[in-house]
């Protein structure tokens, strides 16, 4: 076989190139986080976190937007978690692999790929206009629930399947019914995995802008009921950045967004690794 270069030399070249590329890629990602934190952390203050927005967000704080974000995420998960976990339990414990289960799984996979703006379009036309819910937390929450449902189904299913079959057998052999087994054996065992899915979904809700801005609106007031409009942190950041209202506040908001999402993701992955270690 003809050789252009001695294999060891080739290896060293390739390795050097790969190290360069990896360092470059990682440095982009590290730069993004560091830059945002550097510019955003100085804005943090008590006023920033507890104050209302003054002068359209040029001054004051982001408290209403924190409320909106938490409220919207809460509503979305309150809807999506029972639906998602229930579907996962049904698919794994109550049925055999059949055409129906494959259809359900395929439907969930497709829904996972739908671009968020299309869900925003659907949410706007259905919830805001047709159902007359207006721009509100409930419109946004319903839309976000649809968005995170596939993630919750998928992660719950994986978590439930990871519970060793032997544990179920013990329950059945002691006379437990299927539902008792699910409640007392399967779900506790699958809990870390299910929680991971929930946390990943929380991360997504916090960061989502396209679907939220058209359904929950952009009100500057903190929402008090689900029928109130509310501006989430991500939407507020988008508006601040786009309009050039205040670069300072934009960076501060971005820092809050990043820190919360990264913290949630870290916890989620920590949970996931704990679960994997338990069963491997």
């Amino acid at each position: 076989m003809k050789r252009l270069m001695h294999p060891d030399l080739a290896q060293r070249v390739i390795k050097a190139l790969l190290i360069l590329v990896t360092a470059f890629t990682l440095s982009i990602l590290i730069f993004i986080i560091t830059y945002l934190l550097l510019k955003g952390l100085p804005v943090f203050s008590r006023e920033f976190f507890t104050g209302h927005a003054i002068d359209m967000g040029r001054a004051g704080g982001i408290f209403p937007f924190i409320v909106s974000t938490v409220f919207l995420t809460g509503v979305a998960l309150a809807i999506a978690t029972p639906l998602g976990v229930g579907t996962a339990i049904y698919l794994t414990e109550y049925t055999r692999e059949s055409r129906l289960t494959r259809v359900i799984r395929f439907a969930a996979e497709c829904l996972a790929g739908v671009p968020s703006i299309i869900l925003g379009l659907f949410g706007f036309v259905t919830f805001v206009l047709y159902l007359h819910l207006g721009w509100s937390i409930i419109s946004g929450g319903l839309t976000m629930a649809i968005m995170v449902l596939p993630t919750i189904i998928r992660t719950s299913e994986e978590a439930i399947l990871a519970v060793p079959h032997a544990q179920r057998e013990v329950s059945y052999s002691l006379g437990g019914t299927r539902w008792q087994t699910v409640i007392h054996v399967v779900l506790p065992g699958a809990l870390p995995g299910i929680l991971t899915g929930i946390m990943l979904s929380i991360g997504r809700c916090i960061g989502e802008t396209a679907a939220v801005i058209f359904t929950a609106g952009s009100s500057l007031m903190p929402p008090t009921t689900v029928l109130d409009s509310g501006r989430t942190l991500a939407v507020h950041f988008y508006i601040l950045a786009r309009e050039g209202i205040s670069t300072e506040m934009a960076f501060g908001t971005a820092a809050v967004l990043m820190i919360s999402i990264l913290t949630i993701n870290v916890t989620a992955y920590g949970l996931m690794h704990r679960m994997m270690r338990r069963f491997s």
Partner: protein
Amino acid sequence: MIVTLDSRPARGIRGTGSLFPFVFIVFFLIVPACRKAGDTSATLTVAGSTSVQPFAEKLAETYMATHPGLAINVQGGGSTAGVRAAETGAAQIGMSSRHLKDSEKALRQVTIALDGIAIIVNAANPVKGLTRAQVAAIFAGEVPRWSAVGGADRPIHFVSREEGSGTRGAFEEMVMGKKDIAPRALVQDSNGAVREIVASDPDALGYISLGLVDRRVRAVAIDGVLATHETIVAKQYAVVRPFLFLSRAEPAGSAKAFIDFVLGPDGQRLLGLEGLIPAVQP
């Protein structure tokens, strides 16, 4: 796989699945009916023009300070979105920054202020004035470089608003005339965004609400007239459009109270301070 004692698969969904569509249909029919019955007076939704939005938010902030029971939600979307919101009742008050089209005339409208449209360039751009014909030609894509209108030999990056924008509608009506804005125009969905682009790109040209002009951009004179409060009131600067509040029916309750405040001396003074021309002279 080990077969377990109670691993018989569940019975099929024959019979139970048919309940589903019924539940869904009921939900989708009942909910709209319940909500349609007029809105609660504790929340006022004002939606539409992104040009009017910052001013509406200021007005709302001031009004809510003296009326603590009421929450005013201001949404954007553009003037045409404001017209739709008012027509469908999604908002009690719609905002528009252009005249209503014939098909929209069924709505009740009230002019709250007049606003000039400023044609802006980057603060470092030497061009100080243009004719209306030149602006129209530039936006139609017929003038590729600044040198043709008295500037440096650089390409012109012209920025427009999106199609549903009232600012764009007013601009097309009053400046473009019969010409169409070229497809290669950059498009942004709010005045603030247009201003940001013009502020950072030395070769940019755009049109925004006069009230939004700041130190980083400069409004050029159109046909020799600079856009100021005086020239607009004296009707010398012609690129002026009304800010409208729209509603489906005669405004009542909290909507009427807010509109009265906006048209009253406090509201009009606030709008004047913000750079608009009050509709109601004191």
